[in-house]
């Protein structure tokens, strides 16, 4: 395209700018090129922003919480989600209605009356419970909140059976779940790329051993491993440590799919001319793998690993459902969903299934970003 335009260009000035642009392209690093192409993919960009938001929450969950995630109050159980009203008249004064609850004497269900006239003002950077930011300093400023912390709190996404604020619990759950996915995938990608690459490139007995290892790992169902692990991990470990250990286990099992795929790619790449050329030019094997073949499978790696994150997030929720995953009092999306997995919630407190929406959004975002990245990195794409 650029060539074509250059020929058509009537004046030198224009030709100069075009060639400047072309120079910029030809000089740009591979990653820059990918970024430029990625930028054009609108959905992927939006999803990227969503993921950045998620990871901001991961860094500062307390800041985004409106209340302490463990604060219980029997009198505040099962409050439904509240509608935020932004304007009062023409003035921007966000607020939520007050609610009053009472237990139905027959069904014993907590029933909440919304009083739209009496409102609780909500504002940005409100004061709330004290917490530490990244373990560095202490503050009580929160992104959102009502001023009157003791009396009239806002429950944007309602409360659970113990009267805990769902919004705040979701913020803390986000931290756990998004981290599990990321760490586990990083580890699996490394393992999968290295072992799969070796297997696919060298072949022979190495291939045989690695392939059988993959088979073994893949045919061991995760549930017993999980059962064994959760029981075998030292009981006095804090939840974070347990959670990290579990993540590592997930990765140790999870790399196999990736490994097989990389191997498959390598098997066909090995037959490509450029590898032969490199071999003829006297490149060492490790150099061929690292400099020529790995970059060629990068797009595939990225696509697979972005697809692997959601799979990990879902396996975390599934295992938690069986009571084998991360356990309360630690909070994760899986834990929140597990607490919501009963008829009582589905029938009478459906808002407690909202963590499921978070799972879906996060998975969607990962997938779209992954697709965008793959398209952008694909050398044959455009």
């Amino acid at each position: 395209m650029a060539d074509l335009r250059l020929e058509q260009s009537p004046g030198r000035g224009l030709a100069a700018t075009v060639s400047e642009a072309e120079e910029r392209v030809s000089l740009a690093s591979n990653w820059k090129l990918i970024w430029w192409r990625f930028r054009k993919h609108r959905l992927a960009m939006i999803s990227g922003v969503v993921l950045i938001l998620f990871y901001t929450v991961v860094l500062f969950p307390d800041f985004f919480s409106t209340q302490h995630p463990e604060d219980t109050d029997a009198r505040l159980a099962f409050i439904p989600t509240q509608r935020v009203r932004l304007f009062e008249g023409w003035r921007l004064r966000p607020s939520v209605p007050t609610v009053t609850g009472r237990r139905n004497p027959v069904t014993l269900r907590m029933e909440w009356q919304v009083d739209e006239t009496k409102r609780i003002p909500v504002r940005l950077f409100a004061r709330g419970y004290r917490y530490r930011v990244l373990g560095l300093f202490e503050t009580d400023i929160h992104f959102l909140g009502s001023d009157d912390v003791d009396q009239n709190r806002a429950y944007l996404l309602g409360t659970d059976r113990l009267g805990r604020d769902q919004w705040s619990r979701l913020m803390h759950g986000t931290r756990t779940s998004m981290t599990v996915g990321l760490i586990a995938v990083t580890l699996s990608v490394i393992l999968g790329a290295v072992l799969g690459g070796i297997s696919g490139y060298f072949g022979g007995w190495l291939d045989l051993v690695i392939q059988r290892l993959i088979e073994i790992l893949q045919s061991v169902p995760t549930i017993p491993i999980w059962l064994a692990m959760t029981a075998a991990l030292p009981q006095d470990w804090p939840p974070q440590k347990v959670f990290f250990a579990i993540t590592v286990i997930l990765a140790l099992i999870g790399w196999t799919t990736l490994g097989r795929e990389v191997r498959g790619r390598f098997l066909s790449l090995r037959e490509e001319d450029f590898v032969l050329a490199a071999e003829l030019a006297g490149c060492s094997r490790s150099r061929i793998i690292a400099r020529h073949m790995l970059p060629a499978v990068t797009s595939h790696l990225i696509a697979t690993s972005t697809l692997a994150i959601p799979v990990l997030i879902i396996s975390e929720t599934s295992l938690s459902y069986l009571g084998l995953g991360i356990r309360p009092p630690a909070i994760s999306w899986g834990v929140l969903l597990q607490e919501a997995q009963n008829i009582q919630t589905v029938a009478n407190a459906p808002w407690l299934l909202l963590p499921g929406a978070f799972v879906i959004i996060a998975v969607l975002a990962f997938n779209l970003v992954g697709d965008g990245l793959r398209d952008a990195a694909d050398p044959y794409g455009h």
Partner: protein
Amino acid sequence: MRGRLDRGALVGIVVLVLALGTSIPSPQAMAQTRTYKEAPMLAEQVRAGKLPPVAQRLPEDPMVVPTVESVGQYGGVWRRGFLGPGDFNNYHRVVYDALVRYSPDGTKVDMKLASSVQPSRDFTTWTVRLRKGAKWSDGSPFTADDIMFWYNDILLNKDVTPALPGWMRNRDGSAVVVRKVDDITVQWVYKEANTTFLMELANKDSGDRQFAAFLPSRYLKRFHAAYADKAQLDRMVADAKFKTWVELLAARNHPPENPERPTMAAWVPATRISDQLFVLRRNPYYVGVDSAGNQLPYIDTIQFKFFADAQALNLAAIAGQLDQQDRHINIVNYPVLKEREAKDKKYRVILWPTFGGTDASVILNQTYAKDPELGRLFQNKDFRIALSYAINRNEIKESTFLGLGEPRQPVAAPWHPYFPGDAVAKKFTEFRADEANRMLDAIGLTRKDAEGFRLFPGTTRRITIEISVVPAFGPWPDIAQLVAKNWQAVGIRTIVQVRDRALHFQMRQSNDLQSEIWNNDTSGFPFTGVPKYDPRSLLYGTLTTGPLWKAWYDSGGKEGAEPPAEVKRLVELIDTGKSANPQQQVRIAKELFQIWVDNMMEIGIIGLTPMVQGVVVLNPRLRNVPPTLGNDWPLRTPGNARPEQWFYR
């Protein structure tokens, strides 16, 4: 519920029953003169010559079962849910196949397969008379030999019974003597007085996969090494993949695993409990009749449907697919159940609250050894009382029990003769955080760290308590978190560990639990079975008050930890209770509860809720189901509601 029984009269009844063995002036004579009627399906078989007439099938003195509302009519299927072969107690609770059984209110023992059980004046000899002419479900006679087979070949056979159960052991460790008097009479001869015999006998069905105290000897002998041909027996063992004949015998003896095994219950298994549908059919030889002379049961068939998950079972109940279900109905689903009840009218819901005790308690391990300083703290009575005051029980009640039940200590229910009064039942249950703080300060835990947590005296180490909790039985993980919050508020750092139940049991056994949340049921039975108040019974299923005390008792004081005076007193009381006369038993039980609560052996939280199988879903057409019922495992609820007289209108 509390007002439904006149307590004075009740004590009278219990005393009478326990002393004399048999209750209710039996209307046998009346029944005998009658002609009996039977279910149409049986009448058909009689006409076809496949079954003897009803009068020949019934014993000479059939059990006359009082009906709750009215005499019923035959027919129908009772659909119920179960959770797989491990859920066999579901079957035992429904059929309650025992010689004698607890009454619906749980305060007396009625005759069932036995026509009378009489103690000697000194309570050392108990004479059990069976109903003459009673027959097993295969039509073979039910006689004293069936009890003697159990005694000689099961109980006294070391291969089958490695250790004598407590109720068959004299104080010197020897086996209690059982002897045959005549074809239908058997005597138990104890070396000491035993006043709990009837209550023990009422639990000698096959519950918990134990061998019942009466067995179909004719059928079972083919699986017993003492009677069977060795080569044949070995082949049977190998074919069924067992290793020893004892395993084979146990499996073939357990009715839900083997439909061929004759039983005495109102319904007998037609399929196995390992099947997707576990079906029971009416026993044509059942010993019970109603006051009009109709042979029971009224309902033809019981159908247990397998559910892999309790959630699915609850949904089936809400959809009206179960006709009577108490077991596995989750209390948190109560609001949904009630809303659907009003809307669909497919079922009605009633509540059978637990039979006293508590549905959640925190127990501190007083012999905790891994952290001696913590262990010493747990031994401090004031520390335990302070922790009790620190708990906001009303919040727990509202949050986790839908506002049902009441804050209480683990003692008998108010309607039970052993009830020690509210002064004991409610002791230390008020929410008094300031008093808790004062007491904690008073025992020297005054120093706190920057975050406000109390430190061990003279150190910079935080006092940290771990509550181990199992997510299976009730809303206990939630309760644990609320308790932890309360304790943190008075400066005691608390961590909740949610554990798999097998792991939790294992740790309880090995003295590794610091504290746990559990329930204290069976509080109405402090002298029989496996009382939770008895430190010697601490094994798997009981509380972690002091595992090392058990080791001390087991080893005769050589191992473990010597229990404090109040614990020794508990043991003494339980032992005297076993041979004390009924009036004394009431007094002893009350003293037992007093010591238990005064020393805060167990921090009771909430009791008298319908948490354990107390939310009952009923087909609206199902009649004769008692609206209130004593609900506990020793009572085999709903078996004590006499399901054989339930019927469909």
